[in-house]
């Protein structure tokens, strides 16, 4: 087996108190980046730091201030949920049993059952409970809603918002775009181990292609429309013009202002379209 370069040249800066979405398909290097942050992997070059602490040199001090939900969740099967939570609680010190019970109730989790008997979703809830139990300054959540039903995904987003309101920073790695769209302030998109886009959700959305549909009162200016930059796949059908805009809408609006337009429809792009654009040509 040869060596695999999972990530390269990633340069991310997450601000305190924000929810930072870390997007990318499976195998793009999200978990590898997170495992470097936690000191589980040692980067071959560069450094990963949080709170000014180096992940390799000051791993223990750094991990004291963060909580982590692993993407590939493997828990000690012989323990019950309660035993695991109590054990990790004692290991970290200073956990509040009433907070534990409150979280278990919110997540509808029976902590008395053995972990081996729990479904994937319920095991995920145990990991989430552990992450939100300690009032960590930084929550590192790797695919945190895998296996959760929609109701619990909603509850999870509530927990994320509460944590942010309480001053925590959330690093949310996911390939579920809707989840990131709803929760994140800023987003970085990873492809094949490199960051291909970074910015606010609105900025990323602005980079997405928009579907435009225009109905002209008279004959459409076909040649002018087709000559516009950033217009992709223009189709003129009688008085109706459709196209995809890959850039600014301004030149099109300028052209339309000189003609009689009876109706116009611009579909608002969502993050998914931006995401798919960034992954164009990637299997």
């Amino acid at each position, binding site marked *: 087996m040869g060596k695999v370069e999972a990530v390269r040249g990633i340069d991310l800066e997450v601000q305190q108190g924000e929810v930072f979405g870390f997007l990318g398909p499976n195998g793009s290097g999200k978990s590898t980046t997170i495992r470097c942050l*936690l000191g*589980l992997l*040692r980067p071959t070059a560069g450094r990963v730091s949080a709170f000014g602490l180096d992940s390799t040199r000051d791993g223990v001090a750094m991990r004291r201030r963060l909580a982590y939900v*692993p993407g*590939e969740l*493997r828990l*000690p099967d012989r323990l019950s949920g309660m035993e695991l939570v109590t*054990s*990790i609680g004692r*290991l970290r010190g200073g956990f509040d049993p009433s907070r534990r019970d409150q979280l278990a109730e919110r997540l509808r989790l029976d902590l008395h059952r053995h972990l081996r008997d729990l479904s994937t979703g319920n095991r995920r809830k145990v990991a989430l409970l552990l992450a939100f139990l300690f009032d960590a300054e930084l929550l590192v959540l790797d695919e945190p809603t895998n296996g959760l039903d929609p109701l619990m995904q909603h509850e999870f987003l509530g927990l994320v918002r509460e944590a942010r309101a309480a001053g925590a920073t959330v690093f949310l790695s996911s390939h579920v775009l809707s989840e990131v769209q709803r929760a994140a302030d800023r987003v970085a998109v990873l492809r094949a181990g490199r960051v291909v886009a970074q910015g606010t959700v609105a900025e990323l959305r602005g980079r997405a292609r928009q579907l435009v549909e225009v109905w002209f009162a008279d004959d459409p200016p076909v040649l002018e429309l087709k000559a516009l930059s950033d217009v992709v796949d223009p189709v003129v059908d009688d008085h109706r013009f459709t196209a995809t805009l890959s850039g600014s809408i301004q030149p099109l609006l300028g052209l339309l202002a000189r003609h009689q337009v009876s109706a116009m429809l611009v579909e608002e792009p969502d993050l998914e379209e931006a995401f798919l654009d960034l992954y164009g040509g990637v299997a």
Partner: protein
Amino acid sequence: MNASMLELVAVPLRAVRRAAFWWAAGLAGLVAMTMAVWPAFQGSSGISQAIDQLPAGVVQAFGLQGFGTPAGFLRGNLYDFFVPLLLAVAAVTLASGQIASEEAGGRLELYYAQPVDRRAVLMGRVIAVLVALTVISVVLLIVQLASDAAVDLRIDTAYVLSTIVLSALLGALHGSLAVAIAGLRARPSLVLSVGLGAAFAGLIVSSLFPLSSVLAPWRHLSPWDWAFGGNPLEQATEAWRYIALAVPAVVLTGIGMACVTRRDIASG
């Protein structure tokens, strides 16, 4: 030991308790069944004469010297081969299971992601395996002494104690080799093959090399020779034999700890 360290011991200890029970029960059964036939051997001149007919090398290789005597009976049936080997297998499999298999299965990531040093996580598991090995050895000692009394096998208790302590230390040494390998690479198959391979190789060197005049001096390379070369069932064991087993065990454990801090953690 602080609360964090106690927790790092408690979880693996809980995991090994069932295995420790079965190892203790198995060894206790082996000892009890073996001891049950002692009355048939006691004072039997026929068996001693039959053994005397065997080539000297075979008698030595299989620990059959003085088979009709209490020390010879225990040595040939239990402590030259079976008990130390089984303790070594127990130590290696428990260490491999609690360190290499747990990490390879991704189950240690949860602990390594906590604010604890990797060495503390590993040490917690080493202590759990040592506790299990101690419990197994204490059960073995109790059953051995009780069986001695039950079948009237007269042997100095101190000699039995030192033989079982040496067997346990030999097991711990092989367990620590497993810890060192697991610290280097979280590959259970590698850990088991090196740990068990070393135990069998040491046994072969210790028992078969003396048959060859050329190889005989090399038997001292084997930890088995360090442990049992002084015939602990018949005479007091020199202190250096305990040290020769314990010191490398500590060094190997230290190597495992040093290695685990310098590599990537397997994600399962």
